[in-house]
């Protein structure tokens, strides 16, 4: 009975945690979209300043790079939640459904290791960069370390989403891992 209760509550907690993490990643994806608008709003005044006054707005280029890093790495886990990462799915059509579940689990596990490995090295890079307060020196000095922390965060969350996908595939729980967009993964 205790085991059943534990299993029930453990299951309920896992579902809640899973939804929370996926929701958090989707929220980061929305933040990334807002950052794209900010990027656009930073480019236009810069063009106007250069056209009208013959001078660029100082720091806009550096801010643009920072926003680009924000856009890309914040949305990286969201793209996996929406199944938007490009992949070749030729085998999927010929595999029977029960085998497919385990193939998916293996796939996601491999992805967890790859993204986890890169996240590990990105974290090391971010720590080193933060310790020496790394800056870029172009027109103005601009701190690079926050961008490196963002890169590490994005890759780590991507690995976490892949881990959740692995667990979902092992449990045969397709609902939590269902793609949000049926034609996702294609930007052509």
């Amino acid at each position, binding site marked *: 009975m205790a085991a059943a209760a534990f299993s029930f509550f453990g299951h309920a907690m896992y579902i809640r945690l899973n939804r929370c993490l996926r929701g958090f990643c989707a929220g980061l994806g929305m933040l990334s979209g807002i950052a794209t608008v900010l*990027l*656009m709003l930073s480019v236009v005044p810069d063009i106007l300043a250069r056209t009208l006054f013959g001078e660029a707005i100082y720091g806009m280029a550096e801010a643009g790079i920072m926003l680009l890093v924000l856009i890309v790495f914040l949305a990286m886990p969201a*793209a996996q939640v929406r199944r938007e990462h*490009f992949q070749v799915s030729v085998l999927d059509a010929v595999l029977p459904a029960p085998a497919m579940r385990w193939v998916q689990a293996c796939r996601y596990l491999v992805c967890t290791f*790859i993204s986890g490995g890169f996240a590990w090295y*990105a974290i090391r890079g971010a720590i080193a960069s933060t310790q020496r307060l790394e800056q870029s020196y172009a027109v103005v000095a601009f701190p690079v370390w926050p961008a490196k922390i963002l890169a590490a965060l994005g890759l780590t969350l991507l690995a976490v989403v892949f881990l959740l996908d692995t667990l979902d595939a092992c449990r045969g729980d397709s609902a939590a891992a269902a793609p949000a967009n049926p034609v996702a993964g294609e*930007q*052509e």
Partner: protein
Amino acid sequence: MSPIEIGYLMIGAVIVLLLGGIPVALTLMAVGAAGLFAIRGVRGTVFLIESLPYTSVANLALIVIPLFLLMGHLAFSAGLSEKAYRSAKSWVGHIAGGLPIATVFACAGFSTVCGSSVATAATISKVTVPEMLRMGYPQRLAAGPVAIAGALGILIPPSGILIIYSIATNVSIADLFIGALIPGFLTALVYAVGLYFMVRRDPELVRRTRLPKASWKERASATLAAWEVVVLFIVVIGSIYSGLATATEAAGIGACLALVFALLRKDRQKGAIWNGLLETGSSSASIFMLMIGSAVFSVALGTTQLPALLASTVAGMNLSPVTLLLLLIVPYMVLGCFIDGISMIFITMPVVFPIIEQAGIHPVLFGIIVTKLIEIGAVTPPVGINAFVVQGSVPGLKLGEIYRGVVPFIFMELLLIVLMIFFPSIVTVVLR
């Protein structure tokens, strides 16, 4: 093991992992990292692995990608696809095959503000295919043209694929956009002429589907209603062509204008702009993820010296540029059946582009030819994403009928590619 052998092993590993369904970006990252460890050892590799994800993204020139993606999504939210179709219909609706021809021109028009073939096919098919089916067009004639013409989104500038090609090969985005103008509109024209003759063979279909000729007033009114498309095209492509703005600046202004148009739209769907923002973010992330993978893989493959060896081997064969381009059509067509265009560019360019450069082939011409081959890949089974998109957009459409419908257009595409190979000035004449 020699570095060259490691290079061959890396290519083999990429094929195996891709067939296993591992995302393309992660495949390239894993194989690239493994190759680097094998050649440079741990010390020489760790620094690269730590820094490449950040350095591949933190580049001012790459700002153009999310900005053009944003512009495309906002153009869709602004309802520009419907306006382009109504305008095209008023001009050609009365001729044989009028509606499919109007669909082709609407796709070409929407492509001038949207760089995605999927978005173009999805938005135009929702508006046009139900109307064509109601008028009595068979499924293959209603859905086939929109599936293939949707792919014009990746050829007519601003094109997402051309931007990716530019990043993968360091060819100027402005040159690629300008070089794609004639092939893009020529393709639309060839499709339209083809459709005219295909429909004219069936007099009963012509009688059933012909629309009354619109008056000049109606045409002017429908065209004026689509003024946003014209303004966006002139601002974006006009400013790049005239040298007034760089591609990044044009993308920024274009996205800003598209946002204004979307906000001004009265019948805007609730949440359409927010959804566009979310899609822009996640599309950007998946493209940049590929770029990170490509950066790791390219550095590793370059270290093996395999691309240089292949380039010199091909150069030693003394193939003419025409023969080389004709030979390259086949592998790209086969790849296009299984892999999306963006991945195809990042996977193949580290190996193929040095060969193209060595052979003296114009890099803009090669970019346009590759883009046209990707267009074919977008409608050929088993992946044929545009066919799926059109089928998903209109209930009741049969996938087999859509594939049947695109067959004549694939031959037209191949004809155009061969024409461009033999007459490169179709692409290069407008380049300064």
